[in-house]
């Protein structure tokens, strides 16, 4: 369970921290707590696995990873754990999940691949296919970003 203070801290940290010498001091002042308390709480949230990652989110398109493909795989349920683990071990794979198939969408394993260009994505997919012995798959390249933001948990109630 999260305390009210923890929720407020989370609400602050899902934003952008200031690029200044003492960014936490500024946040702690807004929350009416000491910087020391904030740092302690933050480390605790990290340790409890509530914060998955704390740091800079980069626009990969602007930093040499222009192409990203979602690869949907149709894997035998008997060896999906093995396939998932194998694919997850590849550096180019940033996300790997199992999802239930639907009536007209038979895929049950998903990987996100980031690479320089589409050709590299295809090559990586081929390697994954070979390595995990899965031969039914489809690559879905993103053609347009329609929205990208981070979730705003526990938004502060507006004053007055």
């Amino acid at each position: 369970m999260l305390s009210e203070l923890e929720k407020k801290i989370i609400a602050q940290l899902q934003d952008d921290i200031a690029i200044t010498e003492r960014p936490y001091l500024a946040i702690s002042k807004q929350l009416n707590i000491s910087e020391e308390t904030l740092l302690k709480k933050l480390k605790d949230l990290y340790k409890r696995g509530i914060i998955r990652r704390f740091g800079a989110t980069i626009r990969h398109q602007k930093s040499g990873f222009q192409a990203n493909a979602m690869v949907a795989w149709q894997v035998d349920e008997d060896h999906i754990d093995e396939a998932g683990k194998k694919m997850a071990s590849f550096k180019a794979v940033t996300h790997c999940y199992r999802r239930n198939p639907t009536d007209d969408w038979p895929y049950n394993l998903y990987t996100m691949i980031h690479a320089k260009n589409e050709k590299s994505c295809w090559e990586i997919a081929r390697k994954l296919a070979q390595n995990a012995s899965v031969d039914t798959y489809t690559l879905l390249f993103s053609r347009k970003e329609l929205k990208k933001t981070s979730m705003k948990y526990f938004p502060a109630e507006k004053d007055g």
Partner: protein
Amino acid sequence: MDDKDRAILNRIQSDFPITSRPFLAIANDLGFSENAVLERVAKLKKRGIIRRIGGNFVPEKLGFISTLCAAKVPNHKIDSFAKAVNRYPGVTHNYERDNNYNVWFTFIAPSMDEIENNLKQISIDTGVKDIINLPSTKVFKIKAHFDL
């Protein structure tokens, strides 16, 4: 972007220092001055290479659930469909992709019921009937860290 920028980006994507002067800690790790780190990070932010610096949370640990949804949307309806979907704050990522299922979005909400209801509403509002909801049943990897 030069080698120093790359070193900074590699250093700050995960485990951003939780200490009173985080940029000084980074500077010490990399052998730069605190000012140099502050200036370069500010510039990388201004150029749009850094989207933001902050926390990324595990929705389930905050009492939320997350899922991936896909829809078959006729080309002429993509803009209006995107608008109908994007107005939900829980929709954080939305991409047009080259497939019959051509619009893919992530949805975070306090419960799956709420997401299902929202999907029904989107269907009614847009006339798009084929929307599938694909919650993950197992996570093998999440790592949004790019080695530059």
